[in-house]
């Protein structure tokens, strides 16, 4: 797709960029985590507090990724297929969780849904608070991953199906969902990956209580502040591995869905 000369250097440049920004730093993390041997890596990863934090993080992140996929689909649907005054504003608002620094997000969520909540909703110091904060920061993925695909959808098949008598749920299940499922999965994968690494917006509303509401990234931060960089890297490595597995699995499933894709 590029001119012959560019074709050769294009991928090279891309791989170089990826190396400088991702591969080398991740290699550095891996290297640091095994700095003192596999034994100390294992100890760092199986410490009670590390395990508790990892478990909490994984459960909350999976919940949020799954829940926000559905929410994202609904919101994307409304943005693409529905018309109402102020739709442009609503669409613009969807990306804002990203633009807000995580500390501001954290403070705001604490003030709105914590002890001083004007709505009487207090989810601070509880796991549900973590889920709320994670849902906030990952929503843009869930919506924007599905939205372009939904917008490009060929309506003819849908219309043909319903004109032939298929009910809404059949049309949804057999025509629409298969088309957007890959994108939903992609969005869920991104949401999951972001959620397991998220720190700033979660740490205030969660209360950060060890073994109860302390997420993995907070424990990693504590380790790095206590001069235990190798242990911090070790726990980070675990998160990276989990993300790789989840993202790889999602990629595989998406490839199955896209079996007929034109390549």
């Amino acid at each position, binding site marked *: 797709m590029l001119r012959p000369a560019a074709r050769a250097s294009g991928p090279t440049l891309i791989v170089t960029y990826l190396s400088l920004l991702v591969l080398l730093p991740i290699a550095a993390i891996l290297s640091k985590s095994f700095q003192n041997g596999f034994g100390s890596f294992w100890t760092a990863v199986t410490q009670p507090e590390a395990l508790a934090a990892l478990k909490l993080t994984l459960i909350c992140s999976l919940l949020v990724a799954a829940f926000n996929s559905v929410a994202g689909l609904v919101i994307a649907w409304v943005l693409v297929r529905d018309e109402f005054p102020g739709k442009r504003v609503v669409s613009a608002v969807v990306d804002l969780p990203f633009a807000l620094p995580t500390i501001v997000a954290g403070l705001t969520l604490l003030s709105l849904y914590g*002890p001083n909540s004007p709505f009487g909703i207090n989810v601070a110091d509880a796991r549900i608070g973590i889920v709320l904060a994670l849902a906030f920061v990952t929503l843009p993925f869930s919506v924007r991953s599905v939205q372009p695909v939904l917008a490009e959808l060929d309506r003819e098949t849908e219309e043909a199906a319903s004109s032939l008598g298929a009910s809404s749920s059949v049309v949804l299940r057999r025509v629409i969902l298969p088309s957007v499922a890959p994108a939903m999965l992609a969005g869920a994968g991104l949401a999951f990956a972001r959620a397991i690494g998220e720190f700033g917006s979660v740490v205030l509303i969660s209360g950060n209580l060890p073994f*109860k509401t302390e997420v993995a990234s907070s424990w990693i931060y504590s380790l790095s502040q206590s001069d235990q960089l190798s242990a911090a890297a070790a726990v980070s490595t675990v998160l990276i591995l989990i993300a790789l597995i989840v993202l790889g699995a999602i990629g595989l499933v998406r490839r199955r869905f896209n079996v007929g894709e034109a390549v």
Partner: protein
Amino acid sequence: MKHSPERRTHSKWRLVAAGILPVSLVLGALLPASASASGGSVSIVAYSTPKPAYTVLIKAFNATKAGAGVSFSPSFGASGSQATAVVSGLPADVVNFSLTPDMDKLVKAGIVSSSWDKGPTAGMVTNSIVSFVVRKGNPKNIKTWADLVKSNVKIITPNPFSSGSAKWNLMAGYGAQLALGKTKAQATAYLTQLLSHTAAQPSSASNALQTFLGGEGDVLLAYEDDALYAQRQGEPITIVTPPQTILIQNPIAVTTKSTNASSAKAFVAYLLSPAGQKVWGQQGYRPVLPQVAAQFKFPTPKKVFTIASLGGWTKVNTAFFTPSTGIVAKIEQGLGVSTASG
């Protein structure tokens, strides 16, 4: 006709793409260049709390003969992170941390001379104490360390593994028990009670203050100077000085790699001078010079002990705050295993 919107958007994109480089260059040129002042530039790397104090101090120093024409580039952040940054190469002429172990990191890396604490103030520039911050009017009547562990009291303290401030807080509680005549075992048991009463353990002192101001908990353990600053900013709090507390000592030093040692040394000398110490006092820090401290009416607890009386930071850090094997880590694990609901 069908192609015109495409053409229009194409040229729009081209314009955008073409415009990026020159705009970046212009913006880059507009960024203020580092000042080239006659006295040179001094980079300060400090913990986050004293920023307002330094704003005043730098201005006052510039007004003196020794400080005329010296420009400053200050960096403020979490004490531990700042120390790590300096070790990783962050340029620093003057370093000021919230507790000694962060300075030790720099000594170990050869960035600060090992005789940094041999001066007349033992290397310290300011003092403070651990105080209780409660809701305005002290509705739960919290006065002593024993009150903290009453059944209806919830405590906010930062996480001791990510915050130096939290370490001071916990050692204040521990030392207070010893000062009351308890044994070490009893003091450790007190720490267990203290930690089981925490409603939140935010990752930093700043987050802890925000959490408390956000409505969590009944009492926040904090540096007195932090609390005084919050009060000056109009926050609805009351500061309670516990009858026994620890003396917080904040170290300062000029680095060996300083590129402007003379101005740096002059600045530190100013900070330690009666004039400089007076400014610190006005900012809520207890001066290290006794004659200046006497000019201010800081509360005087019955018993103020130092970390030295508890063994010094190196011993205390190892014994209490080593993640997963330290005394505090073991307490957290014990509490976690019993209260974590899977």
